[in-house]
């Protein structure tokens, strides 16, 4: 087996230790996505360093209840496995949106074996100053919405995603990750809202999401859904 270069060994170690800047991180994640040997070295660093984090301590029982309340109710989906693997390939790493979209366009033709579905629905979410932005891509077959934060800062709060259909009422799609791709499985009764012309929006909310399904924070990013 070919040994990784010292350059790659150090880079993989820096990545796992969290020492790279934003650009360095994006570069490393692009390498992980495309270079199996480098990805293997990254995983090897995780395994090497993990003993530092060892030590089991039982958390208090109440913690599970608050975690369970924090996740949106979702129906169990039976997704096509090929489709799922495809999305996993794309979202297995927090690559910057540009890199992900690049891979999407490069790889998509070769991957689809099932009948080609209609073009995906996408949305670009931003605020007026364009200082906050996310992209979202929705696959109607799997009911899976992939949300990619490009620039998103909610401070100590959590970004909650909303769908606002034609009736103007916002419905929560749950909390998304601030810095990494989030795969949201849209519950069956909400899928009718994920259509061209609907609006996706983000508000900062406390841990667990907005109480009673009503947003408390200001809309910090929004965008209309459109067919790619």
């Amino acid at each position: 087996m070919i040994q990784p270069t010292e350059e790659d060994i150090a880079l993989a170690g820096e990545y796992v230790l969290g020492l790279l800047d934003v650009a360095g991180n994006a570069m490393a994640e692009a390498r992980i996505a495309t270079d199996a040997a480098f990805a293997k070295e990254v995983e090897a660093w995780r395994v090497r360093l993990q003993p530092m984090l060892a030590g089991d301590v039982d958390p208090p029982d109440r913690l599970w209840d608050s975690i369970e309340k924090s996740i949106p109710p979702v129906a169990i989906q039976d997704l096509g496995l090929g489709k799922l693997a495809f999305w996993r390939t794309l979202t297995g790493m927090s690559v910057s949106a540009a890199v992900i979209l690049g891979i999407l366009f490069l790889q998509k033709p070769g991957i689809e074996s099932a009948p080609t579905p209609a073009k995906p629905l996408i949305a670009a979410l931003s605020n007026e100053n364009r200082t906050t932005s996310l992209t979202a891509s929705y696959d109607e077959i799997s009911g899976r919405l992939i949300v990619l934060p490009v620039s998103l800062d909610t401070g100590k709060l959590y970004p909650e995603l909303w769908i606002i259909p034609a009736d103007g009422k916002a419905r929560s799609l749950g909390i998304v990750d601030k810095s990494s791709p989030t795969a949201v499985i849209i519950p069956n009764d909400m899928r009718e809202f994920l259509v061209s012309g609907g609006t996706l929006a983000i508000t900062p909310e406390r841990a667990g999401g907005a109480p009673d399904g009503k947003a408390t924070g200001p809309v910090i990013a929004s965008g209309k859904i459109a067919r790619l």
Partner: protein
Amino acid sequence: MVGHPSRLEISAHGDSTINCNKLWLGSYPKLMATDSGIVDLEAARRASLTEALLRTGKGDRSAFEAVYRATSAKLFGVCLRIFGDRNEAEEALQDAYITIWNRAATFEAGRASPISWLVTVTRNRAIDRLRSKGKAGFTSLDEASEIEDPSPLAEAQLMAIGDDKLLYSCIDGLDRRDAHFIKSAFLGGATYADIAACDGEPLGTVKSRIRRALVKLRTCMEGAS
């Protein structure tokens, strides 16, 4: 990535007195000898955790609960090592599991072990929180050192005894400052800027030094295994 302050801001934010001499004196978990027969148990545990995590990725809440029951003690241990404070560790753990729920669909069984994936997500979320609270760097590690030794150890951890000893003996073989920095970065979110400020060396010099130390650490660990 995006969402927490840039590295330079962190060092400016942290306690204005970064005490570089405060070495991390945290205790590593105590290890015991183990009997045979654990390998199969561990393989079964791993397979069922992989299955539960994959089902969580499809939105299965009961599978998610199974993941929680199987891993919450381990991941709470991770949060305690990073935060030291129980309340903060509880918040970090809650945050970590919400992230795990949201990102479970991105777990690929072929690329990483489920526990490695879960620990990585938890560690990274905890470090993000540490940074957003302005507590990242060298000093927070002193807080982490006050956690009492966790016990009893789960069988899963006993499996890792060899690796634990290897890591610690190889880290101890590094230059003392480099060893301390590697621990501080992994457990406390310390950055190159922090160490450059402490050592009064240019950033470039510090980076080359740590990169050499990482290569040395890997050589030591791979050579022994």
